[in-house]
């Protein structure tokens, strides 16, 4: 009782109010600064391009009349569509392979009486500290036929050691009695894995599934190094050409179906607009699901930190 009163008095001390004031305003500003770039890109993508190219400073609402013309242009571009489709394939296949590999490894290494667990763990841990480096890795990938091949986007990243260790920790945390009970009921080892262990590990599975999903969606470097054929490019790599290398030679821009662009200046303005639109297209799927999945992502850090 006395303690409660004390802290209540403490709450209204001037120094405390000042502390709160500074703390809350600082965090508010930080949050706004963190959020603004995303807002800016979204607002710019629906702005009038001719106003946008002349505009200086921050944006708090779309310039001119809000329109989706930029998006129309982007979705008329065949290379973007192909990239989008490629990304969906790589993310779908890649994440499926990721999950299968990770579950296999995590299950085997979570067995408490596995005789060769020590040597296998050592072999895996070593790779967390040493690696071949970029060039030997690239040459080996080329040697085993990963060059310019769909497999290049799936197999080299099939497993992430860190995620496997997170899942293994999850498996180890399950009460062994449940597994024992299943075996007494006559279930085989495969059945125990599928019917007992996996359903009980849904939260951890969700965490690593999301990590892989986001990783695959955002991946571009392996594609740049290993894919030569533009028909195989994922969306992120096309995005890199448009945003970073400033290559706006998108086929439709300038000749624009449906949107008439008369002058050279207009074409430049539309190119600028397209940059914002592709950025939004590549980011929105992640940002839309993100608020709902945030707690799972954060959980992964907690699980990982226990082991680390």
């Amino acid at each position, binding site marked *: 009782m006395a303690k409660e009163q004390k802290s209540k008095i403490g709450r209204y001390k001037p120094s405390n109010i000042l502390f709160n004031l500074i703390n809350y305003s600082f965090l508010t500003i930080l949050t706004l600064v963190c959020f603004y770039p995303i807002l800016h890109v979204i607002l710019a993508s629906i702005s009038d391009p001719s106003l946008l190219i002349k505009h200086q400073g921050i944006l708090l609402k779309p310039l001119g009349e809000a329109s989706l013309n930029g998006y129309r242009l982007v979705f008329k571009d065949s290379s973007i569509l192909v990239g989008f489709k490629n990304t969906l394939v790589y993310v779908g296949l890649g994440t499926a392979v990721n999950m299968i590999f990770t579950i296999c490894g995590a299950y085997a*290494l979570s067995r408490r009486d596995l005789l060769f667990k020590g040597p*296998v763990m050592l072999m895996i841990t070593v*790779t967390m500290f*040493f690696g071949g480096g970029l*060039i030997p890795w690239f*040459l080996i990938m080329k040697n085993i036929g990963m060059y310019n091949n769909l497999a290049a986007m799936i197999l080299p990243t099939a497993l992430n050691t860190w995620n496997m260790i997170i899942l293994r920790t999850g498996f180890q945390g399950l009460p062994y009695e449940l597994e024992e009970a299943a075996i007494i009921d006559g279930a085989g080892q495969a059945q125990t894995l599928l019917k007992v262990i996996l359903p009980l590990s849904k939260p951890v599975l969700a965490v690593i599934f999301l990590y892989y999903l986001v990783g695959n969606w955002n991946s571009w470097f392996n594609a740049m190094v290993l894919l030569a054929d533009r028909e195989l490019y994922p969306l992120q790599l096309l995005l890199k050409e448009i945003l970073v290398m400033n290559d706006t030679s998108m086929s439709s821009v300038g000749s624009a179906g449906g949107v008439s662009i008369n002058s050279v200046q207009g074409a430049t303005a539309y190119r600028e607009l397209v940059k914002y639109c592709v950025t939004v297209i590549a980011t929105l799927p992640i*940002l839309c699901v*993100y608020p709902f999945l945030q707690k799972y992502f954060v959980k992964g850090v907690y699980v990982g*930190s226990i082991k680390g």
Partner: protein
Amino acid sequence: MNERIDMKAPETKKKEKRFTKDAIRKDFKKNWFAYLLLVPIIIWYLVFCYAPMGGISIAFKDFKPLLGFARSKNVGFKHFIDFFTGPYFFRTVKNTFLLNLWGLALGFTAPIILSLLLNEVKNMKFKKLVQTITYMPHFISLVVICGMIHIFTQPGGIVTQLVDAITGTSHGSLLGFASMFRPIYTISGIWQNVGWDSIIYLSAMSSIDPGLYEAADIDGAGRFKKMIHITIPQIMPTIMILFIFAVGGLMASGHEKIILLYNSLTYETADVIATYVYRRGLQEASYSFSTAVGLVSSIVNFLLLYITNKIAKKHTDVYVF
């Protein structure tokens, strides 16, 4: 991780007894399913991790793709000597070190400060909102992040205008200035990671015994005092572990973000060992030379991690391995 080391000693003694033919047969019979699932995993590690490690041998050869790994000519330490005496040795080493030092000074401390401030926020809704938004950039792809940096630092971009106003001179594109590269790289890195990296500190703070704060209340400590004398010492082990890794990574650098941000105008400050390896190796196909450069860098990294860990072990009771 330190737990495993403790267990190793008795194991080595028993080793001869453990791996007998009989024990192995029994183990395979009992755990055949686990071993079956382990097969693809081991193959994956051999092909995608260990084969490239074996490929390091080309650092000592004059690798010709047509001759392959085995038949390329041995040249000993030629490539290493070329790198150490070459014109880019000093520049790449200096840039790698400085860029990481900036990261250590600003990028490492920012999440600690954020977590301390968030820990003082009692309004849960506000806390949640700040967390949700500051975590967000972590999930945006690097390409998009760098695309945004390009947009904001182009002539007339928001950041360019801000910098122009502060310095009083008019810049074109900020990414064309060597002096701007480190600030842009580091500050955008904070934007990307400050929220996400604060999670681990917040989780450490959530496990602090509330009794400590109550005792401090009775002693009349204010909030700031409690932060300095309770919260920070309590999360110190977490800070130390991450610090060991950060110092161990002083000579390592991610090449992906730099590749997306640098250009020939900014090589002077932006070209690090990893990007040099990338350019020489993949763009100019000097495979052996760039492998040698990469090898030097990973050896130095491991040594740094080892030394920092050793120092930390000696002076505190926190260490990685």
